[in-house]
């Protein structure tokens, strides 16, 4: 059981936690957070699995770096859309 493998297993736990949250929670904000948790789990699995034999693999690290930035952008867009869900368009057009 190398540290990399432990990270990957923890990533699976985060992913499953986020998935259950996405199904069970009703508030849009909490669902966005749960979805983010799933994404973090996937990143942890990617990076952890790549270095389970001790060596560091730069390719998954670069992919995860890309993924983190895209996840930030997707979260911001999701927040803007969730806000539109709470405050419908006709209310703001006066």
């Amino acid at each position: 059981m190398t540290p990399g493998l432990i990270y990957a297993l923890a990533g699976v736990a985060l992913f499953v936690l986020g998935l259950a949250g996405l199904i069970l929670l009703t508030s849009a904000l909490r669902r966005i957070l749960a979805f983010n948790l799933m994404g973090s789990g996937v990143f942890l699995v990617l990076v952890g699995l790549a270095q389970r034999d001790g060596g560091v693999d730069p390719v998954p690290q670069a992919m995860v770096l890309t993924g983190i930035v895209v996840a930030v952008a997707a979260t911001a867009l999701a927040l803007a859309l969730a806000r539109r869900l709470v405050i419908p368009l006709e209310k703001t057009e006066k």
Partner: protein
Amino acid sequence: MIAWPGVPLTFVKRWLVGLSAIALGGALMRAILDLPAVGVDLPGAVAANMAASGVEHPVTAVLLNFRGYDTLLEVAVLLLALLGMWAAAAPGETAPTQVADRDDPVLRTLARLIVPLMILVAGYLLWAGAHRPGGAFQAGAVLASAAVLLHLTGLLPAWTSPRLPLRLGLAGGFLVFLATAVFLLGEGSLLRYPPEHAGALILFIEAGLTLSLGLILAGLFLVLASLRARP
């Protein structure tokens, strides 16, 4: 829906989902533990081509050279997300928030001292990316947090509608990257740098990316901040 008499449906649903999630987690962990050894030697392939990449840090080499098109598309996605946020705002909904009401001299002085240092750190990270952990994304994140800090201390208003200089800044990194890719298309394939100019080209692209990523990431915050509260 089937529910036992006297047992609330949400209770059943919660247990059902919880148990299924635990089962899925167990199966996934089992799969990870049983995974066969890796067939392709990616770290070896990266190490073998490092000399031709123009930089000395493997992650930067993968991001900007070996898989440069991923990064190109990623910046496009970021730009699209910001445009989407603007599109989701109703016309006339964005308004400059009150920035002058929080008059905290200690906080403002601290922000004024720290922000120049953050810009310096961003420049260092950009330069350091060639041979140690760092690069355009980290530098852009530091720039964006400097902008957020300025907004939170009331020194920078939220963005309402961007004018031409800001639009150019937001799209500039992507355009520089795209122009380089198109220019190099004449050499044979997309984003294959000639080894002798690779280092300079990567630094050029990264400099543009740092500025644009900083502005875009700051925009993700400042656009949300400019939307008026519930009417």
